[in-house]
Structures are given as structure tokens and as C-alpha cells.
């Protein structure tokens, strides 16, 4: 493996010997491609997974009918879908996004459902007492009550998203950080591998930090409750 200094000088070099540094436009092209793929997959997973999870948690019947199928598909690793994804979706972009989306969707849905289950029965009863209708309870009790779990789910979803993206890009793809790492290997330009890994770590970290920031800003009550209160 190349030493850290070699990697670092390559990374910040204006004229990189292996062809990849913060001064080369390809570097940003790769980062952007990966970020875009994760963003689309994560967005789709959130858009579909949260309502789906809420429904699973809220309606007993819906869960009885749908969850068994969900549980059959869930243990299949996302990456085992790669060949089918390539067959199902034309082009190189959609298969990668699909296998990034899949585990993110499972994580979001499952945690959202658990979030609804975690809501104390007395909140729902209290809302009924105060004259709320079912739809109002969904909006004012179930949704905010599940929010902490939803964000745990999104946090995991972001992690597994990046996880599968890399594999997807390694197997198929012309751009993206996974591709950078893999091509660095095939072209024997080892510092590029390290640059790819470090960048991946950085971007991954920033994206989960973003999810966390959005979470805390939406859940002010939790942040502020930590300060005072006696726990009982």
C-alpha cells in the first residue's frame, strides 16, 4: 500500500502523477455522480419507505397482508440483486440506483413501523379523549411520535445506501467513487484507491451529519428536553 504522504501529495497536487487530485475536474465528476445516485436512492427510499412504514404500523390489517412478503424479501442482501437489477433496468444508472435504494428502503420502512409501534398507547387514548378523529391522530400523534425512530431509520438508510452504492459502482458503472477505487486497482494506481476511500469516508460522514442536523431541527422537543426535567 502507498504511504500516507504519497497519497496526500497526489491528492493536493496540481499535476497529479496518477491523474486524480482536487485540481482535476474528474475528481468532482466522480464525487458528484456518487452523491447524485445516493441522493436519488435515499430520496426515493424516504418518500416511499416512510409512508409505507407508517401504514404498516398504523393499520393492523395492512401489516398482516403486506409484512410477510416484506419479511421474505428482506433477508436477501441488496447486492445479490445486482444481476437481476442489470436485467430489469436498462442502462448503467438505474441498476446502481436500484440496489442503493433497496436496503435504504428496507431500513427506513422497518424503523418507521417500529416507531409507530413504540408510541405509548396513552398518547393515542389522550388524543381520542380530547376529541381527535383518526386522521387527526395520525397527523398529530402518530407522525411526530414516530419521528425519532424514522430518523434513526434514515441514519441507517444513509449508511447502507453508501455501502451498496460502492459495490454497485464497482461491479457496473463508469463514474463514481466505487468506480474510482476499482479502476485504481485495475490500473495499478494505488494512491487513487486511497484517495477514493478517504473521499468516500468524508462524503459519507457529511451526508449522515446532514441527516442528523435535519433530525435535530425537526425534533426540537427532544433537544430541549434533555436539558431539564427529572425523568419521571
Amino acid at each position, binding site marked *: *500500500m502507498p504511504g500516507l504522504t504519497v497519497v496526500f501529495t497526489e491528492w493536493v497536487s496540481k499535476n497529479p502523477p496518477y491523474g486524480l487530485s482536487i485540481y482535476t475536474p474528474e475528481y468532482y465528476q466522480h464525487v458528484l455522480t456518487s452523491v447524485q445516485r445516493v441522493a436519488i436512492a435515499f430520496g426515493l427510499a424516504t418518500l416511499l419507505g416512510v409512508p409505507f412504514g407508517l401504514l404498516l404500523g398504523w393499520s393492523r*390489517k395492512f401489516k*398482516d*397482508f*403486506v*409484512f*410477510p*412478503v416484506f419479511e*421474505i*424479501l428482506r*433477508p*436477501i*442482501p*441488496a*447486492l*445479490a*440483486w*445486482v*444481476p*437481476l437489477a*442489470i*436485467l*430489469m*433496468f436498462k442502462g448503467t444508472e438505474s441498476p446502481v440506483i436500484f440496489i442503493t435504494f433497496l*436496503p435504504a428502503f428496507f431500513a427506513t420502512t422497518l424503523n418507521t413501523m417500529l416507531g409507530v409501534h413504540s408510541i405509548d398507547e396513552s398518547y393515542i387514548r389522550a388524543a381520542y379523549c380530547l376529541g381527535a378523529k383518526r386522521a387527526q391522530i395520525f397527523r398529530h400523534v402518530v407522525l411526530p411520535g414516530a419521528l425519532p425512530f424514522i430518523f434513526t431509520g434514515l441514519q441507517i438508510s444513509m449508511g447502507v445506501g*453508501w*455501502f*451498496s*452504492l*460502492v*459495490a454497485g459502482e*464497482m*461491479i457496473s458503472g463508469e463514474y463514481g*467513487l*466505487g468506480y474510482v*477505487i*476499482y479502476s*485504481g*486497482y*485495475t490500473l495499478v494506481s*494505488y494512491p487513487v*484507491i*486511497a484517495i*477514493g*476511500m*478517504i473521499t*468516500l*469516508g*468524508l462524503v*459519507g*460522514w457529511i451526508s*449522515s451529519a446532514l441527516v442528523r442536523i435535519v433530525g435535530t431541527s425537526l425534533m426540537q422537543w427532544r433537544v430541549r428536553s434533555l436539558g431539564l426535567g427529572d425523568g419521571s
Partner: protein
Amino acid sequence: MRLAEEMKKRLFDPTRLRAIFAIVVFVVLWELGSRSKDWFGYAAPWISVIPAPDAVIVVWWGLLGDAGYWQSGYLSLLRVLSGFGAALLIGVPLGLLMALSRNFYGIVFPTFEVLRPIPPLAWVPAAIIFWPTQELSIAFITFLGAFYTIVINTVDGAKSIDPRYFEAARAMGSSGWDVFRRIILPGTLPSITLGAAVGMGIVWEVVVAAEMISGGGSSMGGAGASGAGGGLGFFIWNSYTGGSYEQIVVGMLSIGIAGYLSSGGLRMLGEWITPWLRVR
């Protein structure tokens, strides 16, 4: 009489009936979707390229007598277990050490946090360069997959032990090894089992991917070149390149079952070593 009634009740439990119904509907829809082009002359989007369930079952039945199929499963399982075992053996003591020694934590944790966001699969090329054999590099990546969750859960578990337990133990004359053996270890066990369960899920993902990359990527050749030598991930990839699409689905379902069984086994083991959590 009573027993018969009980059986009847269990058998006709609405949740169970609904589950069976749901799965049947799912399989039927899948069949219709896969055959849509032949039967209705209209290719349903996406699903029409997936082989139909009855074709998959026929192929699967044939494969059950095939030694290569079992060999693939065995190889994958071996990799999962060795990577997972190594993660457990190294991760748990490391996590405990990090939780117990402030200095050690200060030194190790930052490094740990820097490395953690890098997905395990990004290590594939680096691992191949670093480790002498391909088997070792796959084992390393597999290990990495479970390692982080196990360490983090162990640290969190040990740190969240109620401090009153330590005070009570200390007041009753307990110290050092005794506290470790009778308070810290059992107190951390529930989170270790939790971390292990999560780790097990990741490990299967990693093994499949590593097998696919090393087998599928032409440049890595080596031991993975023969169909039987590559494990289930390679089995899938090989079926893909070989054009036998039914086998892809067989491979996927096999991995699903293996993953499900190993998590289930782990959960049972976890319950067995933490009997106090079972009772309520």
C-alpha cells in the same frame, strides 16, 4: 378436547391466514408478471425479465442434487463464520477495553471514527493488495463488516451499565477481576448480542458482494475462477454471465434463507446466554 381447540385456534389465527394469503398472492403476481409476455402479449415492466417461480423451483429441484451448489453454500457460510468469528473475538475485547480505559479510548476511538464511514467494500482492492491470498482478503472485508457494529455496541453497552451496580459491588468488597466477571461482562452481554445480530446481517451482504466482485471482475481470477470455488455470490454472478437466469433467483433465495437461518440461530444463542432478559 382442550388441545384440539387450541390447535384449531392457532391454525385459524387471522394473522397467519392473512400471511399465507399474502404470500400466495405475491407468488401468483410474480408468475403472472413473469409470463405476461407469453400469456397476454404485454411485457409487464421490470418483472417480465425475472424468471417465473415455477421455472425457478424446477431449476432449484435439479440443483439440490448438485454438489457444486452445496459447495458454494458451504464456502459462503465458512467465510461468513470466519469473518464474523474474528470480528467477535477481536471486537468484544477491544470494545470492553475502550469502555474501561479512558486513555485507551482517547487513543483508539478517533482512529476508529475516521475509518468507520468508509464502507467495507471500498476496502476490496486495498485488501487484495495487502493480503497475500484472495481468501484472506475476503475474510478481512467480511471481518470489517461486522467489526464496527460489534465494537460500537460493546462500548455503548459497557458504558451504559448502571453506575449503582459498581457502587453496590464495591461496597460489598468486590473489585478488579470479580467486578469484571460478574458485573461488566453480564451487563454488556445484551448489547453484544444485539451488535452481533446486526453484524451478521452485514456480513452476508459483504460476503456476497466480495464473491461477486472477485469472481465477476475478470482481473481477480485466482481461486474464484471455478464455479464451485466461489461461493453463493459467485454462483449468482456466474449464472448471470452464463445466462441461466433461474439460477440467479435460486442463488438469491438461498442466500436469503441462509442469512435468515444464521440470524435466527444467533438470536437463539443470544437468548440462551442472557436468560434474565427472557423472563418477565
